[in-house]
């Protein structure tokens, strides 16, 4: 037997292979997976979609569904094999010794049960406690996860609290029985950035407060850096690199890990001088994995005979380092110093004349209130102030980013620009033509062509019923670019070349394309009518990290060459910092701050911008960041706070004036504008949020 004094790992995965068995045959989801979690340790598993990271979590829970099975290997929990356990044994472990936090808090809670009952179940069914005791413990735990007014939460149904609060409830539920191991599967992906920051803060405190070991699954390297001690990078079902966070982040060894880091916009990257380097090619489907190294076909260091051996590649330790392993045959041979892959870059295009001007634009929606009270009072209509007093300039070849969280009005703003909604007040001027009150159908074809859009969701940006080519052709014909069928066809093929897709894609249906490819088609469609302004609404947020880099690069590249103005709407400040020349920060329908990228990322900050910058997880160990966690929830735009919209959550609130008066706009000569009561001179003294290490 093992030495009893040695510390037993909480969890150990030994050579685990997991497969799904479908009609199409066996699909190996996870291959040769090893993982050791020591008590109190937190381990991050990172990888792109389809890499098998969630499958690992479900296998640990032994909850694989009908057709999934651990084919070989062992998953040991405190030294006992989970696969060998009976249903009863499993049940006694689930929720009490291993518990899990899920990606979508709303869907993970039972909609028709009060939160109190859902929480109390955990101690009631795992320990011999009374109702009163279970209730008290639930209340205490809700307080421990920093939920205000636990009694009210206990009596609420899940839909009555916000997304951030729901996730805190799920975390509380997971911690109620003091588990030895906590699995977190993308716990903040569905949340807004500032809400995410609060949850991440909470997760960081868990292990110190409760001594729980954690496995944190995420696609975001920055979040792993903030929360974990160790990291395992997965690619196509395999762990390709594992080690301490410091070791992997500072000296990554596997070419895929390198590629991943090179394709995320870290501070210091820039579209002109230090561009992102996308990983070429595509993630192979599990059925089509190459022989040997699965990353081989996408790797610049691939060597036939070595990397494609039939036996496959196994994990090998890095010499002179502790618990740092790499699944690469050649990692010692690679000379990273002399490796300088070429990214998509080009000269900064010259910024020209003003193309688009928005002046004091307002958009109010009417909301009919059908409650009895409203009926009696005769006040049936409420206004949602989706956009208030929007002022904005965009010049030729310039990229202007609009940043904000959900409900900030950025999507409404795009709709007004596109003519899908009419502005309530104010003007939208494009090339000298007033458009704010002209719905798209009354605009001339040439005007419509001047202003086009790239949409967020690659899965419904294209009509699934029509071929890719016919959808692009329709735009060309609609905008009178060409009318001769032969020429239209030619133009379609040219556009496919423009977005670097093979020409035979013209005859494909959208479902035969990957997410990134669909988004490329979306870009081709937007540029088909030679637009002056393209509005891109979160064009890459639904894509995988390595694909994001390629699509972002492509978009900025085309925009630069065609001297198009790009309005880039996003919630992700890292991407925004990378692509944009100027940034507009919105909160609850108002512009809180706008200025050049440098102005936004350096003091003076608007307190909201400051919090937003602090909330962005950064995957760079040399970057120091101040942590600012906002209190409270995002207010609803139906019922915005009085005075300054940000006053309910502002850490720098100066007093009653914030609650009663809307601040006046403070503007510098360069156009940097801040909507705040605190004088610019005072804001100037605020410390940098993100500091790059001098070294």
């Amino acid at each position, binding site marked *: 037997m093992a030495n009893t004094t040695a510390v037993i790992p909480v969890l150990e995965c030994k050579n685990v292979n997991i497969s799904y068995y479908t009609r199409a045959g066996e699909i190996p989801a996870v291959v040769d997976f090893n993982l050791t979690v020591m008590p109190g340790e937190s381990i991050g598993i990172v990888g792109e979609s389809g890499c098998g990271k969630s499958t690992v979590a479900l296998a640990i829970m032994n909850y694989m569904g009908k057709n999934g099975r651990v084919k070989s290997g062992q998953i040991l929990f405190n030294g006992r094999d989970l696969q060998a356990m009976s249903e009863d044994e499993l049940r006694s472990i689930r929720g009490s010794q291993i518990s899990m936090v899920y990606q979508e808090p709303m869907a993970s809670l039972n909609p028709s049960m009060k939160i109190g009952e859902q929480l109390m179940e955990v101690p009631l069914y795992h320990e011999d406690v009374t109702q009163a005791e279970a209730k008290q413990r639930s209340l205490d735990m809700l307080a421990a996860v920093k939920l205000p007014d636990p009694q009210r939460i206990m009596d609420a149904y899940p839909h009555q609290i916000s997304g951030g609060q729901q996730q805190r409830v799920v975390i509380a539920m997971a911690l109620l029985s003091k588990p030895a191991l906590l699995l977190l599967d993308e716990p903040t992906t569905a949340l807004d950035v500032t809400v995410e920051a609060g949850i991440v803060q909470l997760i960081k405190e868990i292990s110190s407060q409760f001594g729980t070991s954690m496995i944190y699954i995420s696609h975001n390297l920055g979040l792993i850096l903030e929360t974990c001690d160790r990291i395992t990078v997965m690619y196509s079902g395999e762990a390709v690199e594992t080690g301490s966070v410091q070791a992997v982040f500072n000296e990554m060894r596997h070419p895929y890990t390198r590629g991943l880091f090179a394709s995320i916009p870290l501070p210091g990257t820039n579209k002109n001088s230090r561009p992102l380097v996308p990983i070429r090619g595509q993630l192979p489907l599990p059925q089509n994995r190459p022989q040997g190294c699965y990353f081989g076909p996408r790797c610049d260091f691939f060597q036939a005979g070595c990397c494609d051996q039939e036996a496959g590649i196994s994990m090998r330790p890095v010499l002179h380092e502790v618990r740092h392993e790499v699944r690469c045959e050649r990692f010692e041979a690679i000379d990273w110093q002399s490796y300088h892959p070429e990214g998509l870059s080009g000269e900064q295009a010259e910024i020209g004349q003003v193309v688009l001007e928005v002046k004091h634009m307002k958009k109010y929606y009417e909301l009919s209130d059908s409650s009895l009270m409203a009926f009696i009072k005769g006040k049936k209509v409420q206004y949602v102030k989706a956009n208030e007093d929007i002022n904005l300039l965009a010049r030729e070849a310039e990229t202007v980013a609009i940043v904000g969280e959900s409900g900030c009005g950025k999507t409404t703003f795009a709709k007004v620009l596109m003519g899908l909604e009419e502005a309530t007040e104010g003007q939208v001027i494009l090339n000298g033509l007033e458009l704010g009150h002209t719905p798209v159908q009354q605009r001339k074809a040439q005007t419509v*062509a001047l202003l086009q*859009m790239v*949409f967020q969701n690659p899965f*419904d940006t*294209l*009509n699934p019923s029509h071929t890719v080519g016919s959808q692009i052709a329709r735009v060309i014909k609609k905008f009178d670019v060409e009318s001769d069928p032969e020429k239209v066809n030619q133009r379609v093929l040219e556009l496919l070349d*423009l977005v670097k897709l093979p*020409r035979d894609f013209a005859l494909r249906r959208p479902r035969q394309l990957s997410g990134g490819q669909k988004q490329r088609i979306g870009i081709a469609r937007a540029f088909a009518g030679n637009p002056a302004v393209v509005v891109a609404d979160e064009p890459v947020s639904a894509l995988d990290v390595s694909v994001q880099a390629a699509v972002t690069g492509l978009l900025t590249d085309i925009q630069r060459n065609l001297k198009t103005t790009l309005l880039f709407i996003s919630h992700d400040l890292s991407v925004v910092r990378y692509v944009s020349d100027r940034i507009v920060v919105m909160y609850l329908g108002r512009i809180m701050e706008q200025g050049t990228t440098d102005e936004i990322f350096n003091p003076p900050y608007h307190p909201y911008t400051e919090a937003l910058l602090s909330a962005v997880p950064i995957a760079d160990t040399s970057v120091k960041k101040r942590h600012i966690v906002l209190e409270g929830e995002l207010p609803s735009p139906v019922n915005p706070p009085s005075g300054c919209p940000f006053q309910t959550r502002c850490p720098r609130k100066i007093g009653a004036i914030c609650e009663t008066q809307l601040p006046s706009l403070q503007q510098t000569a360069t156009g940097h504008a801040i909507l705040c009561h605190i004088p610019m001179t005072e804001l100037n003294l605020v410390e940098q949020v993100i500091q790059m290490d001098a070294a």
Partner: protein
Amino acid sequence: MTTQVKLETNEIPQRESGFKRFFKALILMRESPIGMVGLVLILFWVVMAVIAPLLPLYDPNAIMLPFQKIGAAAPDGGTFWLGTDHKGRDILSRIIWGAQKVLVWATFATLVAYIVGMLMGVVAGYLGGWADEAVSFIANVFLSFPFIILCIIIVATLGASGWTIVVAVTFASAPQIMRIVRGLVLDLKTRDYIFAAQTRGESPWYIMLVELLPNARGPLIVDACLRLGYTVVAIATLGFLGLGLPPPDPDWGLMIKEAVPLGAFAGHSMYLPAAALASLILGFNLLADGLREVSLRD
């Protein structure tokens, strides 16, 4: 320029023909045994209906020996394979010709109902506002009639004929189709490709007919299959109530109605048309189930 345009033409694969894709869809059905059984049942009746004029059958309305048992010899030396009814008409012939009648009218009536219902649904769902209110109110008026009662009233007013059945089925089914299409459209119209069409200034009709409707086809094909079944039931039920296709044309519902009182000594003349009817409707229901199963898989 980093984005240079290459102008060589590369091979472009041809799109498969409609027939080939239909054939592929049939092969896909193989994966659902239930759907296969349904398809076989339907095809059996369709083939019977099509080749009815070519089969060596007695005239369905010819009056010969009444109450003949299954397989009894006919006076002209032939055989009454399924016997004869109380008036001495050949049951086999009446069932096969009845299949033709019910299939033709059911298909036609469902088609008309679908055209009306889809137009109503796409208009209500996409345009919304008062157009939705108006169309939905009309639909609600007709939906508040129970199906058969609406049919009875229409037949009682217009008189019994195939065309009346078409009208009745349209009035009864179109509002239901409208509701389904409206629901689908309400979901589909929030998709980005609809916004894309709107932002390039497409007309509402283009968006409704070209962008929206083709994407609703999956659930609608399943529903159409079920609805064909309902329509067959409706036609047979009207026949049973004496409101269907006017006699002496063979009608399954009417055959059952006439045979039941005499079921004590001529059971086969009531069981056989009932079984024929049940098998056809079962076919539609099973095929719909199979289609749903297959469509959910991919």
